[in-house]
């Protein structure tokens, strides 16, 4: 079972995991998403919690219900989620990186060259 970390409410984590799958292309637009009971069994959570997670994405227009068949990824869902995540990218990834670079005395030029440079992932490895 994939571990859920308990930082945010469980139903939000369920919504995030589904959103991840849609952004990553694992769940294509028009694809059927797992049912509430399937999610509950997979993550070992209460079905009501899984339903709350799904409803979060329905409210955002990312998923749509087709009566009697199930939940499906809505048209345009991937781009909608990507746009939302781009907005939060600076806050979630760049700001913490800048804060750590600042603590380590890495100036902006060095940081930029680290990002531009080939093999940056080797040079920046940590134990």
């Amino acid at each position, binding site marked *: 079972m994939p571990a859920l970390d308990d*930082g945010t*409410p469980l139903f939000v984590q369920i919504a995030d995991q589904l959103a991840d799958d849609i952004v990553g292309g694992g769940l294509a637009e028009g694809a059927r998403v797992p049912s509430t009971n399937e999610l509950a069994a997979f993550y070992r959570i*209460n079905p009501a919690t899984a339903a709350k997670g799904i409803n979060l994405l329905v409210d955002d227009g990312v998923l749509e219900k087709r009566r009697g068949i199930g939940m499906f990824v809505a048209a345009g869902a991937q781009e909608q989620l990507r746009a939302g995540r781009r907005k939060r990218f600076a806050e979630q990834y760049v700001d*913490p990186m800048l*804060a750590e670079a600042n603590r380590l005395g890495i100036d902006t030029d060095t940081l930029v060259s680290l990002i531009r440079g080939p093999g940056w992932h080797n040079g920046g490895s940590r134990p």
Partner: protein
Amino acid sequence: MIPTISATALSRRYRDQIALDEVSLTVEPGTVTGLLGRNGAGKTTLMRIITGLEFPTAGDLRVFGEVPAENDPVLRRMVFVREEQAYPDLRVEHVIQVASWFYPNWSEDLAQQLLSDFALPPKRRIKRLSRGMRSAVGIVIGLAARAELTLFDEPYAGLDAVARQLFYDRLLTEFAERPRTIVLSTHLIDEVADLLEHVVMLDHGRVVLDAPADDVRGTAMTVSGAATAVEEFVAGRTVWHRQRLGSRASVTIADSLDPAEQAKARALNLSLEPLSLQQLLVHAAGHSADEKVSA
């Protein structure tokens, strides 16, 4: 909709000892409720009154809107699996057969499936079963009864982690496929936390917490990092616990943090860790004890 269980100012006294002290609560149909608390908190007494095994000293208790005691039609709609349940010394298959006569929604297919899942030998006599196997017999009956109200009181004495996980998985599948009302009393809070929709905590016979599980999670955080930064961050908040080691500090606050506050914590290079349900309840119990002392 009529609540499955409703208690109003329910009290139970044994001579000079108070087991339940004006307990009021409702359990809605189709939910999984965790009934939590320390030994002697009143969990078993409450379940015994719900299942008509005991009478309240004062107050009112209703199951499906009726008083359960000596009310056979109501009692047949519920199943109660007790800790260290005693069975007549029959063979396992006969205990299962006797149980099947009592519960109108009994599923024989499910019972047989569970017997094989838990590797229970049908021909063996109850007395020759291990403690864990006897617990598994209770779990088989509790699930196969498919009763509208299913109560488990510490159902897993002697069951190992693998068998407990099997129990949780089967409970979840059964609940998903055939929704019913489940009340589960346990000490292994973190094991069942994600299965619960609602949490009721008793302490010294009183309800100290009665809330949706989603509301309880994330209501307290441990903030750790450089002591000066930690103190700056927690200033003005309700502090439950404080620990220091050299220049580092770790402080538990009774707050949930919005994304802006979380970003602020990250900027201060602080790590945030939410309290698990079990840790939260330990705190809740500690605080109600404090109140009692100061009252």
